[in-house]
């Protein structure tokens, strides 16, 4: 091709709309919005080929602030709408924005099926462990004992673990990020680079109803509790003084001290190891650090590609002849009226 195709270089500013952002001051959503707007130019995204699809909740206002195509749908159904969008036009870059209530409670079924089908898209699940827009009820990810207007004596149900849920549903890409952390764009870039459904849990602080619920690992002072995973690198945290090792006897993970920078015996991260991914997403915070970054990334064939391939194969050599279609089956010709009435 002689002609040079110029990819319009964009800046984060190009991805902003003229709409006033309506999240509470100090909400983690602002940081995520900035991170996404910073990521889009870096991945060479084209606004006209990008669609943000959301459900209902604070996080789901997201599309209004992105200068792309956007669809603010109904509660929990963004994955289903996105499936139709992608099947109708597989060329589109589809991003789903959802929350813990939207994506795991009312829309849990759709999230599960989108992941098992492996539709090529990015799912950003903003987890703040609370229902914000409806004023603070506990959510499916709230920890046991969460006091809220609907659970004045504390919640009693066991919380869902978004990444464990995603992996169990068959996801081929699992990552975690933090709203205000500088690494978020790199996590988003990895998610975008993955062909297939990419599930990203973003710890997002709700300053009004659940402030600092993630502080034990998100606050600067607690950064030692963050385990940032890198493919092919040993799993070190706390400034390289601690690491994750495999307890071979118990088939579990264990925290070990790293002495004099000797990382032998420390597990080396492998993003294609599904068994390891299971261990990492189930790793309880407290005794263990919070696993962050790309936990699992092992692409498989995608749903829309399979559908398109089957559509093409089934249509092969068959002209779209409507007249033939309506004339199908056993037919008979009436030459003239047999007799008058």
């Amino acid at each position: 091709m002689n002609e040079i195709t110029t990819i319009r270089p964009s800046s984060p500013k190009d991805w902003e709309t003229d709409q006033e952002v309506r999240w509470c001051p100090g909400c983690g959503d602002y940081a995520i919005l900035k991170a996404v707007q910073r990521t889009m130019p870096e991945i060479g995204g084209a606004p006209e080929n990008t669609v943000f699809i959301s459900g209902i909740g604070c996080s789901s206002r997201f599309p209004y602030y992105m200068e792309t195509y956007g669809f603010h749908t109904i509660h929990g159904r963004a994955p289903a709408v996105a499936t139709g969008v992608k099947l109708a036009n597989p060329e589109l870059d589809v991003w789903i924005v959802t929350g813990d209530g939207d994506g795991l409670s009312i829309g849990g079924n759709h999230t599960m099926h989108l992941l098992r089908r492996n539709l090529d898209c990015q799912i950003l699940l903003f987890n703040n462990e609370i229902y914000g827009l409806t004023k603070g009820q506990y959510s499916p990810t709230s920890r046991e004992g969460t006091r809220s207007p609907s659970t004045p004596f504390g919640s009693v149900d066991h919380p869902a673990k978004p990444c464990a849920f995603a992996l169990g549903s068959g996801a081929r890409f699992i990552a975690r990020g933090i709203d205000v952390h500088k690494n978020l764009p790199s996590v988003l870039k990895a998610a975008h680079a993955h062909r297939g459904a990419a599930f990203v849990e973003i710890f997002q602080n709700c300053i009004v109803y659940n402030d600092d619920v993630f502080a034990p690992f998100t606050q600067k002072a607690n950064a030692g509790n963050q385990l940032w995973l890198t493919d092919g690198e040993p799993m070190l945290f706390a400034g390289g003084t601690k690491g994750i090792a495999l307890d071979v006897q118990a088939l579990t993970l264990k925290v070990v001290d790293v002495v004099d920078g000797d990382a032998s015996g420390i597990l080396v991260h492998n993003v294609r190891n599904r068994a390891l991914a299971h261990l990492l997403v189930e790793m309880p915070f407290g005794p263990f650090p919070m696993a962050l970054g790309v936990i699992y990334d092992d692409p498989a064939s995608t749903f829309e590609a399979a559908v398109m391939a089957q559509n093409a194969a089934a249509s092969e050599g068959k002209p779209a002849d409507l007249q033939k279609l309506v004339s199908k089956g056993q037919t008979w010709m009436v030459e003239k009226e047999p007799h008058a009435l």
Partner: protein
Amino acid sequence: MASAVHQVTPAEASADPQPEAVVVRFAGDSGDGMQLTGGQFTLSAALAGNDLATFPDFPAEIRAPQGTLFGVSAFQINFGSVSIETAGDAPDVLVAMNPAALKTNVGDLKPGGLIIADEGEFSKRNLDKARYPENPLDDGSLAKWQLLRLNISQLTMDAVKPFGLGNKEALRCKNMWTLGLALWMFDRDRQPLIDWLKAKFAKAPELAEANIAALNAGHAYGETAELGAQGVGQLHVPAAPVEPGLYRTVTGADAISMGLVAGAQLAGLKLFYGGYPITPASAILHHLARLKEFGVTTFQAEDEIAAIASALGASYAGSLGVTCSSGPGIALKTEAIGLAIMTELPLVIVNAQRGGPSTGLPTKTEQSDLYQAVYGRNGDAPVPVIATRSAADCFDCAIEAVRIATQYMTPVMLLTDGYLQNAAEPWKVPDMSGYTPFPVEFEARVPDEEEAFLPYARDAKLKRPWVKPGTPGLMHRVGGIEKAEGTGNLDYSPANHQAMTEIRRQKVAGIDVPDQVVEQGGPGGTLVVVGWGSTYGPITQAVRRARRQGLDVSHIHIRHIWPLPRNLGDLLRSFDHVLVPEMNTGQLKTVLRDQFLVDARPLNKVSGQPFRIHEIEAAIGAFFDGAPRNEGGTLSADDTQLPNPVAGHDDGSLRGKSSPQSA
């Protein structure tokens, strides 16, 4: 053998001793292949040029326990040399493959009608299951009918002996033996069926041969067994006078599927179908899944909500989104229909209605989702509603639904029902070149620098532009939150909501629907019978008979339920009385009263069975009590003929007879 179903006057009957139409019902165990037998018999009648209508009636269970009353599956066909619009009121011939089939169906048989019973199945065990204390073939209880008892089971076993099948497999050929006899009775050609069997069992030629042998044996039995001595002879039902042309049989499900494809092609769009299995709508998903060469993508979603949400997503991306379901599934889709209204995207929602509420009667028919279609959403949420009247009509209605959806950017509800979905009728193959395309024009013009793109700008029809994501320069956001006029930005302000609600109302109210025509009679007169949907057949026949009696009665059948045709109010007011027969408790009646302040009177039936002609005739008669030619005649206002749910007399059959199948 009794003659025709059209026995309105003695004069008419004597004028034409040859039967104009015959009603045959095949009834047997749900594993006996009665639907297949009926379907093949239908084809033979169609190939002989008869007009016809069918009524498949089967239990919800796939394989109900053998021999039980609730496991009976039946298929009724009315075929004739005259115009046929219903599956017929009372059968002339009943084929009963076991005692349960006899018990549940014989009450419907015309006096003097013929029973063909497989006496091989009338064992003590089967009689017990059907709760017959004595064998009805022996105890004289069937005296008012003609009885032809044959050991069909044994005759079939004898016929297929050479093929070395096991007992069970050999008995499976019973339905073909029976069909052979039926084909002989009506002098039908066996060859198309033989060809069909060969194709069906291409991989198991011995099964094909056995079935063909059974078919031939049944036919030969008719020829050689001197059935004439038992009063059973061959009957010739001549071809019906129909418009010349190419014909085929079609079910409503097939016609809707093809109509949706045709509509999408006329609009120049790909078709995306999001569906979830549900009776009786699934047949459309099955059909469309095989039509990929027409740009059709089918998606079996995880639930009803995902089915419609994916279809709406596809519409947003520039395809024609379609979803189909039945009442309970439509209920689940309701919120997404609201989203389609708010985002003003095209979408076709087909509701194959069944008996409700809740799970209701999955395999039985009803028209009780009209309120749901017209009113059943949160907010002021207008949706155009179209109702199909016959299997063949489903084709044009589906095209009409696509036209309205794409030309007005709106979801459209297309109502059909369980009866129409499954019933087959002859269909004159349409000439597709006669349909005018209505190509969609996507918005792609990028506005000038100082001019903003307005996704909620409107044309004269109040339609907003349809922009495909991927179009440069027209990025915009849509969603379920109230939109500002023009820009489509979030706007909760009171004046804006007032204005947008009004715009949405006006857009749908202003849809160009054809003026209402009068099917028979009118405009003006004593009585008009107003129907919608699959009651078309029985109303047509009932009004025809009443008019032959000289009664001043007309028939209006409404296709466009919402918005209603503009001339409908004046039309209705031109009659003294308005009667609305419906398979619900009076839903269209209420809408007509509300919209036009007319004194519409209901005639309701909710037994899961279609109306019978005489039920509507009787209701018509009530408006002409004492009128000349109506004193004690066929159209007497005899309310014992009317459906009476309290007395259990809800299926139009003889009073006091309770149907174990519906119990």
